């Protein structure tokens, strides 16, 4: 329990060691600690951002999916409508063609009937004239009675 110069030596050593620590130990380790803290903070922020990005992306994907489904539906409806319309048009066209063909056939038939009637009329007239000729040959002069015959012909 004696006091001696060891005390002062220890005092000086104390300050030298403290100075050394302040100079070479404390700052680098503190710097490393601070850097790591900021790295961790950045990492956490990035993770948060990634999480919110994921949510956004999921929402966008759902949106796109819904939109695609909607447009597909629309397309299908359009196609059905168009198909129905084409069918309708084709049916109308067919009906029109049929009607036109029928009209044409009827007209032709009428013309043919008319012509047949006229031919028939001529032939009847000839037949009548021939009959009458046969009957009247002896008593009637054809030339003399032409007017009468024509009149008869028109009346048929």
């Amino acid at each position, binding site marked *: *329990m004696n006091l*001696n110069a*060891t*005390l002062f030596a220890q005092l000086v050593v104390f300050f030298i060691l403290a100075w050394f*620590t302040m100079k070479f130990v*404390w700052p680098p*380790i503190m710097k*490393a*600690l601070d850097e790591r803290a900021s790295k961790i903070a950045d990492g956490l922020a990035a993770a948060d951002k990634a999480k919110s990005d994921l949510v956004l992306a999921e929402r966008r994907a759902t949106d796109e999916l819904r939109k695609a489904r909607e447009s597909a539906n629309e397309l299908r409806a359009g196609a059905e409508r168009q198909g129905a319309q084409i069918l309708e048009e084709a049916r109308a066209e067919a009906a029109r063609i049929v009607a036109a063909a029928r009209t044409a056939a009827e007209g032709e038939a009428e013309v043919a009937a008319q012509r047949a009637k006229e031919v028939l009329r001529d032939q009847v007239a000839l037949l009548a004239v021939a009959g009458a000729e046969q009957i009247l040959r002896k008593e009637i002069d054809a030339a003399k009675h032409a007017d009468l015959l024509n009149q008869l012909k028109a009346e048929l």
Partner: protein
Amino acid sequence: MATEHAPTASEYIVHHLTFLTNKKQEGLVDWSVFHLDTLFFSVGLGLLAVFVMARLASRATSGVPGRFQAAVEIVIEMVADQAKGIVHSPESRQFVAPLALTVFVWIFLMNAMDLIPVDLLPLMGQAVGLHYLRVVPTADLNATLGMSSAVLLLCLYYSVKIKGFGHWMHELFTAPFGAHPLLWPINFAMQLIEFVAKTVSHGMRLFGNMYAGELIFMLIALMGAAWAGTFGSGLLWIGGVIAGAIWAIFHILIITLQAFIFMMLTLVYVGQAHDSH
């Protein structure tokens, strides 16, 4: 041992409590004497501590730390937190916080010398011709008072730096009782007593704990040394082993606690130097 015969118990204790000095101490206070063993172990351990930490610091990574780096970081963060809570000037902390770290690690290592078997290093010393060797620097009052005096100097330095010399003087004479001129001597005396009490108790606390701990290790070693082939001495030997184990385990707590207390008081005293009364 200087003597040829086996030492008695008191000779053994006295021998173990004698420092290795450059010359014989005359009287209670002799400023021409150095304790070479205290200086060797305290400087050696201090250099070991700061160089190991500096080596670590030079390759400290801000990425994933190794185990050793993580351990040192735990200590440093503990010290930094305490310093931040006690010393409120960031500028002072730039020196005081590393100082507190040094104090903690250094005193912890010096205290830990107590855990080395009490006769091991003295016997090795004798083998190279050193008759006396005390290996626990903090069980030397000179070492602990030297460190507490350093803290006192720090307190005086920061008192003047933070408050200014005039304001500090004013405080010395007007606190704690008041500014009445009649109270000046009393105030000043109280302040002096406070400084002396702080410093002496600061150093004495560490010294007392480590000195007592060392002494108990020696007594336990004496129990072990009582082995003489008889049944009673055999029991003493076993008792020595058990007591030594228990005391060493308990001492792990004490050396850490005392290092921590010395560091905390250093911070508190320096922090007080920043506060105005």
